């Protein structure tokens, strides 16, 4: 029984996580660089010009990859929040704490690239009738809410558990918002209901490039989150012997 759960408790130990990620990071960096290079070269040079959108379909490769990845933040934070609340595992909170700002950046980039793409395809920088942009906007607001709650509570443990609860509530809420905005939009569809789907009959070249880019962005998310979590560990565990030794070694 104890053996089966050992990995789980080890995972809760920041030291264990730090040592494991020291070993994983080079591989993750390498894989990220590989996928990013292939994705970028493919999207910029080899992606065939779309008969309707011309070269702007190159924007979509980045936009779709970032947008798809940014949807994973609330589920990620909700899972981390559950672990924080149920098992009081501090590592889960360290991940969640750094995931919120990164998720806000992802959401913002999704909105920015979407609106740059829209300025060509829709002829306008902002379009309320595109439900994806609207629900992404509210996901952005909800992430800002989690960040400001974290900033407002001084006690680290209280902040961790409060943000954990808010992330779980927010995760349910994001789903409800998504469906209600979709519904709202099908009823408000005005004269030019151009959606992102126009880009889809592009053939496999487009989708393969996008899938490569999605993998690259997920790897980037992993690397960036791990780096930030390791910093968090170094700060919170600064009194631990192994951190002291590490600081002296890393001269």
């Amino acid at each position, binding site marked *: 029984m104890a053996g089966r759960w050992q990995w789980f408790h080890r995972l809760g130990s920041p030291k264990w996580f730090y040592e494991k990620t020291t070993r994983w990071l080079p591989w993750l960096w390498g894989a990220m660089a590989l996928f990013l290079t292939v994705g970028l070269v493919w999207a*910029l*040079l080899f992606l065939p010009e779309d008969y309707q959108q011309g070269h702007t379909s190159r924007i979509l490769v980045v936009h779709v990859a970032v947008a798809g990845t940014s949807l994973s933040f609330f589920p990620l934070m909700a899972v981390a929040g559950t672990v924080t609340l149920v098992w009081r595992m501090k590592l889960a909170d360290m991940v969640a704490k750094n995931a919120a700002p990164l998720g806000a950046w992802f959401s913002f980039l999704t909105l920015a690239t979407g609106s740059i793409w829209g300025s060509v395809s829709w002829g306008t920088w902002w379009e309320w009738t595109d439900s994806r942009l609207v629900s992404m906007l509210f996901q952005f607001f909800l992430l800002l809410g989690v960040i400001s709650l974290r900033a407002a509570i001084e006690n680290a443990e209280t902040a961790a558990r409060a943000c954990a609860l808010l992330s779980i509530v927010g995760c349910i809420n994001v789903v409800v918002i998504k469906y209600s905005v979709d519904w709202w939009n099908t009823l408000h569809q005005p004269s030019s209901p151009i959606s992102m789907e126009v880009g889809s009959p592009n053939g496999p070249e487009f989708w393969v490039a996008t899938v490569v880019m999605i993998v690259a962005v997920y790897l980037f998310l992993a690397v960036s989150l791990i780096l930030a979590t390791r910093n968090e560990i170094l700060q919170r565990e600064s009194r631990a012997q192994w951190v002291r030794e590490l600081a002296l070694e890393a001269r």
Partner: protein
Amino acid sequence: MLDGIQFNSLGEFLAMGGYAFNVWSVYALFAIFLLANLALPLRKRRRILREQRRRLAAGAGQEEAGTADRAGWEVSQEPGVQASGWEKRNDEAASAQ
């Protein structure tokens, strides 16, 4: 392999069929976003380790002079480490296995 490239000249590549601003601003934003979110944590890591070394050096000097553990006290003033009791719990759980 190179036949697949969609552009005949560098100028054409940069012009992006008239959508240079849109395409290149998206890729610029993307690049800034990636670089910032990788470089900032790395820079922060160096800063944390530097401060840690400075604190250790200060603490060692204090201990030689026979005073209280000043390094520990200073560290506890850092934001995010107030809940030290809570933080220890997981280590104990891990070592108790």
